[in-house]
């Protein structure tokens, strides 16, 4: 007895054995596996699009026109009108939906509080998130296209309607994360509510708001269904986004990819790669802008 106690006991600092350790390992493996599972489809999509689309990409494909007929062999014409159309329509939709969505989120979080209007707007915007994009296209078709004809503007309306709830929801969540201590600090200096919102709350949340808005933009840029009803299928570049049939990359992917002709299929892949590249460039640009805005948040 005395011998046992006399011996100095070293503390056991090794990792715990048994079930606890096994559980930890299982969970770690599960997380790694799920990460890989998520990456696989993404990687395949990117790989396939690059492999099949890269060969057709050239300056004349990106900027040239008109868009070739589906029976034409690869190398004829270009996607210029569709690139232009996508940029025009998405930009217009962004200009309409992002400011409106951010202002809506500001109302919901900063002004609305718990009143019935804010609750209603929040609920409706959540419902809107779930509306299928083709329904949005039909909606714009009936209220706008039937009266004023096909145009890039109609497409922008449809895309804007799709973006709006995403922008509202993501901005709202970002505004909610702004610590109340910052608001109080500003109020304590005699700032009005509007001033607090513009000079403290929005700058503090800008990084997240930009990210959320970008997701909405990227989603809108890839939408096909609403554009089918709203912008038509022009083969010539239409610089006037407000009237006349237009075209966009998703529409061209749709029109070309379901053809039996090799040339059309190549053009479809090329258009797909172009669209991915456009979104990618947009993401990078927005990250740079956000980093500049958020340079003081540590």
């Amino acid at each position, binding site marked *: 007895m005395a011998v046992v106690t006399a011996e100095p006991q070293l503390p056991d600092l090794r990792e715990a054995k048994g079930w606890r350790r096994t559980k930890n390992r299982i969970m770690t493996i599960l997380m790694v596996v799920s990460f890989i599972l998520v990456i696989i489809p993404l990687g395949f999509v990117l790989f396939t699009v690059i492999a099949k689309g890269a060969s057709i990409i050239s300056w004349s494909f990106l900027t040239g026109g008109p868009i070739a007929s589906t029976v034409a062999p690869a190398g004829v014409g270009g996607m210029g009108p569709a690139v232009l159309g996508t940029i025009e329509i998405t930009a217009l939709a962004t200009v309409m939906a992002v400011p409106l969505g951010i202002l809506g989120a500001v109302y919901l979080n900063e002004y609305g*509080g*718990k009143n019935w209007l804010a609750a209603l707007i929040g609920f409706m915007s959540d419902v809107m998130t779930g509306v299928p994009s083709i329904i949005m296209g039909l909606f714009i078709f009936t209220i706008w296209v039937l009266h004023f004809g096909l145009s890039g503007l109609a497409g922008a309306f449809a895309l804007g309607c799709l973006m709006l709830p995403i922008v509202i929801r993501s901005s709202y969540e970002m505004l909610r994360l702004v*610590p109340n*201590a*910052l*608001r*109080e*600090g*500003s*109020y*304590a*200096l*005699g*700032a*009005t509510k509007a*001033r607090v919102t513009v*000079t*403290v709350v929005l*700058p*503090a949340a800008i990084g997240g708001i930009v990210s959320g808005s970008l997701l909405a933009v990227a989603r809108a840029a890839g939408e096909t269904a609403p554009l089918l009803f709203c912008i038509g299928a022009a083969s010539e570049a239409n610089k006037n986004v407000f009237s006349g049939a237009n075209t966009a990359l998703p529409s061209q992917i749709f029109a070309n990819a379901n053809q039996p002709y090799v040339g059309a299929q190549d053009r479809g892949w090329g258009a797909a790669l172009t669209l991915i590249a456009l979104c990618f460039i947009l993401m990078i640009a927005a990250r740079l802008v956000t980093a500049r805005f*958020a*340079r*003081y*948040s*540590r």
Partner: protein
Amino acid sequence: MEQSEQNTAPGLKAIPESATRQPQVQMPEPAAIRDAEQTAGLPAEAGVPIFEMKDVSIYYGSFRAVTNVSLTIYEHQITAFIGPSGCGKTTVLRTLNRMNDLIPGARVEGEVSYRGEQLYGKDVSPIAVRRRIGMVFQKPNPFPKSIYDNVAYGPRINGERNKKKLDEIVERSLRQAALWDEVKNRLGTSGLSLSGGQAQRLCIARTLAVEPDVVLMDEPASALDPIATGAIEDLMKEIKDRYTIVIVTHNMQQATRVSDRTAFYSVLVNPQSDTRTGTLVEYAPTDRLFGDPQDDRTKAYVTGRMG
């Protein structure tokens, strides 16, 4: 009244120079104040009343958080609020610049006046109130902006656009807050990059930049180490001849070190409804409240027999 002020004032003013670096000089200070008062034959009712509270109760919805507070806060004095947790010190402090307006359902009953004007009067704008009565919070809350923009924030929202004037204000405020030397070469870096004590001094500089009449401080040193706490206490003593300061503190030593008057709050527990309501127990010059407390609850608290 005048006389007593003249008698006390030099004694009080002597604190910053002597006490900043040499704590041992602090000891005779309260006695000196008392002597001055006694020779004048007056309690330390010296000075212009800034805040007068009469029978104030504060509610959050139907819950009465604080009841029965009546006190007067005087110009160019440091008034400390002490008491156990949940006794309503912070709530009372926040009524003084209408910060409680920001909490839905908060409401004040009774009379609160600021320099004779009803603080909760009909035409009073909380914005205008807060421009005169600044506040420093328990947790340092610098804005995610540069150090310069943090300090210039207040003047800017008050319409100051002149770059040269803003530079002056920023330097003056940072100097007053004893932060200038540490940050003068990196005014462009983020306010969030500062340490806790520096961030709190930045927040004080930000408050001083709008030249408020009163500075309310809600446990400004509770998250800081003793050195940073000392710096902030020195700072308070240095600026009190320009500002009136009200400070909430959990630290009784801090109250004795810095304050001229102390208000002790306590909690009334209603066992039937299990609600806790804060109330003002005793309000007196600091040396008297700690040296000769009149109420048993105060006595128990200041002698450490009650949390």
